[in-house]
C-alpha cells in the first residue's frame, strides 16, 4: 500500500485500483472475463475450429504434461537457446576485447561487422540447415551468431568508452597487454557487456523459436508449426501458452538478476 497516493478527493473505487491488491485483483478479473467470453460466447462457439477454447487448450496442455510430450520439446528449445547463447556470448566478448585492443584491425573490420550486424540473422537459417543439418547444431549456430553480434558490438563500445588515461597509467607502471586487458579493459567494459548479454537473452529465445519454425523436428517452435500444419489450432494455442509462460519467467529472472548486480 506504500505507493497509494493520499486519499484526497478520490472516491473509494478510484483508491481501490491504486492499491497492489486492487491492481492484481482487477487484472485477474479482466483475464477471467476474457476467458469466459472466449469459452462461452456464441460467436466463439461458432468459430471453435479457428479459435479453439480455453478448456480445450488446458486439456491439451494437461495431456502433454502427462504423456511427456511437453518436456521433450521444452528441453530441446531451452538447450538450443542456452548453448547458442553461451557460445555467442563467449565469442562476442572475446572478439570484442580483442578488437577493442587492436584499433587498426577494428577499423579494417568495422564495415564488415556493421554489414553482418544489420543482416537479419534469420535469413541465414536455411543456409545453416544445409550446412549443419536439421538437428540442433544448425539452430545453435543461428542463435550463437545472433547473440555474438549483439554482445560483440556492446563489448566494442564498452572498450572504446574506457578512459585512455587509465590505460596509460597502467602502461607507465609496466603493465603488459594481457594485464591491461585483464585489469582494465574487461572491467571497464563489464557494464556494457552485461547490457549486451541481457538484451541477447530475448533475442536468443526468439531466434530459437524462429529456427524451430523453419526447420526442426523438436522444440516449442516445431510444436506450434506441427499443430498448425495439422490444422490443430488447439495444439498451436497450447504451445503458444507455453512460450508465453517461458518468456514471462525469463523476463522475471532477468530483472531479478539485474537488481542484484552491483554498481560502482
Amino acid at each position, binding site marked *: 500500500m506504500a505507493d497509494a497516493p493520499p486519499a484526497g478527493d478520490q472516491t473509494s473505487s478510484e483508491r481501490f485500483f491504486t492499491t497492489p491488491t486492487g491492481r492484481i485483483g482487477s487484472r485477474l478479473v479482466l483475464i477471467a472475463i476474457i476467458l469466459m467470453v472466449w469459452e462461452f460466447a456464441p460467436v466463439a462457439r461458432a468459430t471453435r475450429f479457428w479459435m479453439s477454447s480455453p478448456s480445450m487448450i488446458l486439456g491439451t496442455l494437461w495431456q502433454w504434461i502427462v504423456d511427456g510430450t511437453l518436456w521433450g520439446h521444452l528441453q530441446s528449445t531451452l538447450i538450443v537457446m542456452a548453448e547458442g547463447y553461451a557460445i555467442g556470448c563467449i565469442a562476442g566478448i572475446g572478439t570484442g576485447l580483442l578488437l577493442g585492443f587492436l584499433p587498426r584491425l577494428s577499423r579494417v573490420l568495422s564495415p564488415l561487422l556493421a554489414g553482418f550486424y544489420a543482416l537479419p540473422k534469420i535469413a541465414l537459417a536455411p543456409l545453416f540447415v544445409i550446412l549443419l543439418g536439421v538437428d540442433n547444431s544448425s539452430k545453435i549456430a543461428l542463435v550463437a551468431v545472433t547473440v555474438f553480434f549483439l554482445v560483440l558490438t556492446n563489448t566494442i563500445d564498452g572498450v572504446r568508452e574506457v578512459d585512455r588515461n587509465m590505460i596509460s597509467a597502467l602502461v*607507465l607502471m609496466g603493465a*603488459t597487454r594481457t594485464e591491461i586487458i585483464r585489469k582494465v579493459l574487461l572491467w571497464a567494459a563489464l557494464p556494457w557487456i552485461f547490457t549486451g548479454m541481457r538484451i541477447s537473452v530475448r533475442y536468443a529465445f526468439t531466434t530459437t523459436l524462429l529456427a524451430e519454425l523453419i526447420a526442426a523436428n523438436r522444440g516449442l517452435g516445431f510444436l506450434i508449426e506441427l499443430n498448425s500444419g495439422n490444422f490443430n489450432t488447439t495444439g498451436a494455442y497450447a504451445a503458444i501458452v507455453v512460450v508465453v509462460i517461458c518468456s514471462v519467467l525469463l523476463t522475471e529472472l532477468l530483472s531479478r538478476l539485474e537488481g542484484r548486480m552491483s554498481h560502482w
Partner: protein
Amino acid sequence: MNEMTLARIETPGIAVANAKIRLLGIEKTFHVRGQHIEALYPTDLDIRRHEFIALVGPSGCGKSTILNLIAGLMRPTAGRVLYDGQEVTGPNRRVGYITQKDTLLPWRTTKDNIRIALELKSHAMPRSEANDCVKQMIELVGLKGFENHTPAELSGGMRKRAAMARTLIYEPETLLMDEPFGALDSQLKLLMLDELQSLTQHRRMSVVFVTHDLGEAITLSDRIVVLSARPGRIRAIHDVRLERPRDVFKVRFTSAFSEQHERLWDELKDDIVKGTDV
C-alpha cells in the same frame, strides 16, 4: 640559517654532466578543429639526477605537455626527449606519473587501487607483502578507514591522495606530478608536502612537479622553472638554495622564502593576467 641566493638564469641547452632528463628543442603543436595551437615553443631543459624541479607558469603554458612528453605519452612535434641519454619514443616505464585528473579504477576499492602496481609482473610481490605495503601507504596518505571505499565514495582530495599512494608504492625512480595537491585543504597539503619531501629525499627520486602554487614550489624544489604564457617557453630558472631537510611548516615564514616568492611573483604576474583570458 636558511641561506638562499638570488635567482640565477641559466643558459638553456647547456649539457649537464649528470642530466637525468634532457629536453632538446622540444616543440608541441596541437591541431584542434583545424586550428593550430602552439602549446610549447622550442624548449631546452636539463633535469638533473635526484633533482626536485618545479614548473610554474600561467594556465595553458605547456606545463602538463612537458610532463606528457617526458612520460612518452605524447610525441613532440619537433625536438627530442632524452631519458638517461636514450630517446623517449614510447611510454616511459621508468617514471611514475601522477596526473591532474586521477585515473583510479572506479571498480576497485582504495586499497585494491593502491595495490595494483604490485599485482603486475613488472613489480610482482607476494600478496601478503604487498598488503603490508598497501597498509603502510594508506596510513602515509591518511586514508585509514577508507580502504574499502570505491573512488566514487571518496572526496576529491582523498582520490588525489589515493592516486599518489598508488604511484609512490612502487617507488619509480622519477616522479612526474601534475598539480597533485590542488584539491587539498591547506593543513593536509602541508602534511603531504612534508611526506613527499622525506620520501623523495630518502629514496633519491628525481621529481618534476607542476604547480600553480609558488609557495609549494619554493618549499619543495631545488630549481623552479618559470614558463611564459602560451606558447610556453622558459622565461627563467630560479635556484632555491634553502637547506634540506626543510621544515615545510616553518620555512614559509622565513625572509629568504618571502624574497624568493616575491621574485617569482614579479616574474609571473604579467603572464598570469595574460594567461587567464586565453
